[in-house]
């Protein structure tokens, strides 16, 4: 499903001293099949934006309110028109899975099986048959790399940190959403855990969810994994570029208070010494080009 936002604005707590403009005229398109990254400081509006995608935050539908917003606001996810109040939000949420930050804090059921089944049961039109439910839960748990036979009867609170996160992700992808949105999926994990989660996301992207959107602070994560990335700052979108073109703007990104990937830092340091290397800022590509260069010199 293609995601298309035009002139999207949002203000929290309007008409109070706490009023805060979270989104200001955001225009952004995510094509089907992308592994899309969203970068931005805390409070840059990225969380508000992704919450729009499955209707957790809605565009005010009454005419009176809409006048104040730009009337040309467009927000479409596939065939769903989110600016219209008639949208079937349940169907939308079924097609757009949302994994929040630290998803392990949403676990609640007595067993991992029940927790993963929660979403499936909620979205099913009628009560699913036992085998059907078991099938769906089993494949979701196996998809996230957990051993179904070993964990399905355990309490989710007995799992380790990384396993809890996997179980929570299984609870979202169990309905096989077409779009999967993840807020900081690797936050708080050790480097190996981070890598494993990213590999897991690529697998989900390949096999189940056509479009994956991740929000991240970690620029290495973005440069290694994403097809394109959007940079949010103060409620607006500054750049939407593939990582290879984005991380050329080192100074601008630093000005926005953002870091750059390690690979970009290395390239920058080399450039200062007069060695020009152009790479797409993935570690593999940089290493290959550096090696080629050394062979050329020696």
């Amino acid at each position, binding site marked *: 499903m293609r995601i298309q936002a035009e002139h999207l604005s949002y203000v929290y*707590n309007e008409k109070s*001293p706490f009023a805060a403009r979270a989104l200001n005229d955001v225009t952004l398109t995510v094509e089907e099949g992308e592994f899309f990254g969203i970068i931005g400081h805390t409070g840059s509006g990225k969380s508000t934006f992704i*919450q729009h995608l*499955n209707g*957790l935050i809605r565009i005010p539908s009454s005419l009176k309110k809409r006048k104040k917003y730009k009337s040309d606001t467009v927000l479409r996810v596939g065939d769903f028109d989110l600016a219209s109040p008639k949208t079937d939000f*349940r169907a939308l*949420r*079924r097609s757009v*899975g*949302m994994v*929040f930050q630290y*998803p392990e*804090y*949403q*676990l*609640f*059921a007595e067993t991992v099986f029940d927790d993963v089944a*929660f*979403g499936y049961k*909620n*979205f099913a039109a009628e009560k699913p048959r036992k085998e059907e439910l078991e099938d769906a839960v089993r494949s979701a748990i196996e998809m996230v790399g957990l051993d179904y036979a070993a964990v399905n009867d355990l309490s989710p*609170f007995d799992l380790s940190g990384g396993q809890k996160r996997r179980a929570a992700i299984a*609870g*979202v992808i169990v*309905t096989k959403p077409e779009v999967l949105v993840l807020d900081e999926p690797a936050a708080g994990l050790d480097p190996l855990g981070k890598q494993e989660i990213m590999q897991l996301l690529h697998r989900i992207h390949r096999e189940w969810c056509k479009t994956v959107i991740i929000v991240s602070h970690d620029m290495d994560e973005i440069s290694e994994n994403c097809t394109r990335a959007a940079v949010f700052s103060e409620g607006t979108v500054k750049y939407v570029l593939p990582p290879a073109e984005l991380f050329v703007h080192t100074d601008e990104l630093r000005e926005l208070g953002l870091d750059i990937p390690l690979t970009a830092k290395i390239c920058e340091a080399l450039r200062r010494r007069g060695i020009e290397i152009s790479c797409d800022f993935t570690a593999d590509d940089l290493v290959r080009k550096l090696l080629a260069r050394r062979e050329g010199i020696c």
Partner: protein
Amino acid sequence: MLKDVSFGQYYPVDSFVHRLDPRLKIVFLIAYIVALFVASNFYGLAVCAAVLLFAIICSHVPFGKVFRAVKGVLFLVIFTAVLNIFFYNGDAVYWNAPAVLWEWHFLRVTQAGIVFSVFLVIRLVLLVTCSSMLTYTTTPVSLTDGIESLLTPLKWIRFPVHELALIMSIALRFIPILMDETERIMNAQKARGAMLDSGGLGKRIKAVIPVIMPLLLSALRRADELGDAMDARCYMGGKTRTKYKKLTFTWRDLIVFLLLAAMIAGVVVLRIYLGAPL
């Protein structure tokens, strides 16, 4: 959505009222409530209302905000009024022959009943408004500071005043955090298709479990972490601790104190001279 809960919310502007000593504001509220009950006629209430109106204007809190607090207890106010209209028949001493306006079995509406219920409604509204003014103009932290300071005499009978104040301030401090957390968890479960606001009573109670469980766990986790953090900084409680913000009594407080004294004197005088309720 949850943030719309208005009762007991600080309204962050700078004003004369905001800068008053919290101890004075607490004493003011108590004295004001007493005055409301001492007032025996509409003139007395008018004096109280005038003082409160003046305080609201000085505090820069918008009227709409103030009345939202009243809206919260609207049911109670209406309930009291209706009950009194139908069941209060006037005090024999002041109303020799209560003028009955309408009667049906045991229900009887008299002129005294109507006047009295109006009186009660005004008293209740003033009471709620004044209490919410205290929380609108005082941060939770200075409120507990004030309470701690006012309760200091109880230390003589070994009452753990400092600990009580600490518990209060921690509880108050965590309300917004837990509210945010609730909202986050609700969003996460809604994204998984939880229907939190539809269905019958049984369904709704069941629908609460996916929110309550994680919330409870996270509250316990936070309590644990806070305890560790306090331990790590060698928190030992009361006695030798000093305050970051010392409470001081200034000329502003003196003015308000005099105003309060004048108001109470006025209410007492009106009660003695005009006596009769209404």
